[in-house]
């Protein structure tokens, strides 16, 4: 299969020169005469490709270089070196044709004007993106229904809750139906219900319009629900690029067995079954090497008064945390 590639990134690097000084008045005066700088390499030789219609999770701890990469790919930042094309355009040239076909949603940044209804911002976007009236209305109706926005668009933005505001931000960012979405923490600070709704909306948008999505999120539920593929970046470098399931398999070659017991069981009866994660009040969780899972499952069923048993992959949060701690092999 030779899928069309929407995002091509080759050896992308971004260095910042940042002023530094010690704390205190003396250092403050000294810095007037001799400013000192430190070069920070935010992104180092990052390379990857994203095919049309893919949803890719872009993961990393704070300061890993995720947002800097997204800003370069959306044309906000010039890289120090390296190359990138998005939908065939070099992003930092900021060609109108490119800007018309992409969007960057930043969970912490608003485009809606605070004191007036979101609808006013939508109308400005309609004019700027030259969206014909009929298409604008149809898209707005569609998004209003998907995100349950009835009654919200006429309220001043300052009177909306965080979740309602984020939904309106998404509409403002997608009214022109961009082909590529860079989403930077779109569910930040939202409650679980709202996170689910936003997730569903992203999935629906991706499926309806075949849009390509590069998503950063600290909520692993977002990643697990939306992304088959993840790119992990740490200290500005790509540490892993591949299927989420492969990551789990290579980093965490074990399963977690959750067992509900009918009767009290002495701990020594668990010897040799695996690592006990938790045990008590009729519940047992075991970490078992993948290849031993069938054997341990059989033993549990045969030797213990089992009421219920489930076999699960380890939580994605734990896997990612492990990647940041110990790294993975070559991507």
């Amino acid at each position, binding site marked *: 299969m030779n899928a069309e590639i929407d995002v091509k990134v080759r050896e992308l690097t971004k260095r*910042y020169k940042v002023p530094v000084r010690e704390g205190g008045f003396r250092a403050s005066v000294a810095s007037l005469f001799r400013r000192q700088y430190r070069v920070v390499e935010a992104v180092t030789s990052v390379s990857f490709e994203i095919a049309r219609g893919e949803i890719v999770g872009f993961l990393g701890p704070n300061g890993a270089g995720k947002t800097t990469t997204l*800003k370069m790919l*959306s*044309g*906000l*930042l*010039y890289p120090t070196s390296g190359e990138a094309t998005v939908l065939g355009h070099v992003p930092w040239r*900021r060609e*109108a*044709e490119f*800007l*018309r076909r*992409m*969007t*960057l949603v*930043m969970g912490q*940044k*608003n*485009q809606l*004007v605070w*004191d*007036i209804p979101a609808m*006013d*911002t939508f*109308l*400005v*976007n*309609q*004019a*700027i*993106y*030259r969206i014909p009236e009929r298409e604008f209305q149809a898209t707005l109706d569609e998004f209003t229904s998907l995100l349950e926005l009835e009654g919200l668009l006429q309220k*001043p933005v300052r009177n909306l809750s965080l979740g309602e505001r984020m939904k309106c931000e998404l509409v403002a960012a997608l009214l022109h139906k961009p082909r590529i979405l860079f989403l930077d923490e779109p569910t930040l600070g939202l409650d679980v219900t709202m996170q689910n709704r936003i997730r569903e909306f992203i999935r629906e948008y991706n499926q309806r319009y075949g849009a390509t999505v590069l998503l950063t999120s600290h909520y692993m539920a977002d990643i697990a629900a939306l992304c088959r593929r993840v790119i992990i970046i740490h200290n500005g470098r790509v540490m892993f690029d591949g299927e989420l399931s492969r990551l789990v398999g290579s980093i965490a070659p074990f399963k977690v067995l959750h067992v509900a017991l009918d009767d009290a069981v002495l701990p020594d009866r668990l010897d040799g079954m695996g690592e006990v994660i938790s045990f008590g009040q009729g519940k047992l969780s075991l970490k078992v090497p993948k290849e031993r899972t069938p054997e341990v499952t059989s033993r549990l069923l045969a030797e213990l008064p089992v009421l219920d048993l489930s076999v699960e992959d380890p939580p994605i949060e734990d896997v990612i945390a492990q990647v940041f701690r110990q790294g993975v092999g070559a991507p």
Partner: protein
Amino acid sequence: MKPVFEALQGLWRSYKALFHLSWSEMLQYRASVFLWTLWSLAGPMIHLSVWSSIVAVEGALAGYDRGGIVAYFVVQSVVYHFTSAWQVWEFSYLIRNGTLSVRLLKPFDPSHHFVANNVAFKLINLVWLVPIWTGMYLYFRPEIPWSWERVLAFALALTWASVLMFMWTHCWSMLAFWTVRASAFFEFADALGYLVGGGIAPVALLPPALQWIARFLPHYFIAGFPIEVGIGAIDLAAVPSGMIVSSAWIAALFVVYRKLWRLGLKRFGAVGA
């Protein structure tokens, strides 16, 4: 021809939407907008009272008797309104809080937002400024030689002055890419311009050497020149040459702005976003 027409039509629609957005925002804060406007009249009125008192004691200065001084500062209040520009503060703020990044993501030069906001503010404030100016005219009875040619020349000089002030401020705004305190540099340069450009007194009252220099500086074409055209201190035949110099300043500042914009974007760190 068709693509050009479509581009202009698109631009006009965007401006119309931005006007509505600006007006909606201003109407939310109508009291403060009204007070800012009222405050902008304070400077010309203070100058008027000071210089009227001086002329009453000293007699006419450089051809300006009491009637001339009154005309100068009444017209100045109109010129001030149309030549106000404030994006140097706004631009720094947009960079610091990350809003510039949001605007840069769109296929629409962020400078259009400043133009639209500037024009919208000036237009909406006419609702109360026109009655105030009329009241001032009836109260002070300034000596203004009315003719359609002069009104047209004044309107042109005022429009050019407005564009020139906008470009002057816009160039200083670009410094925000390099320093968060771009407004401090602007305020210093602008205060100097104000002193010699006809802000606190007609340029004719400056020492001759300074006067000669001042008449080539942008601030003269922002303040002194349109006022002098309006009150008849400049012969109509001399207006075109003034407009040419003013146009040259606008063109030069536009080139400087574009250069700074391009350099600034390369340096832009998209902070706050």
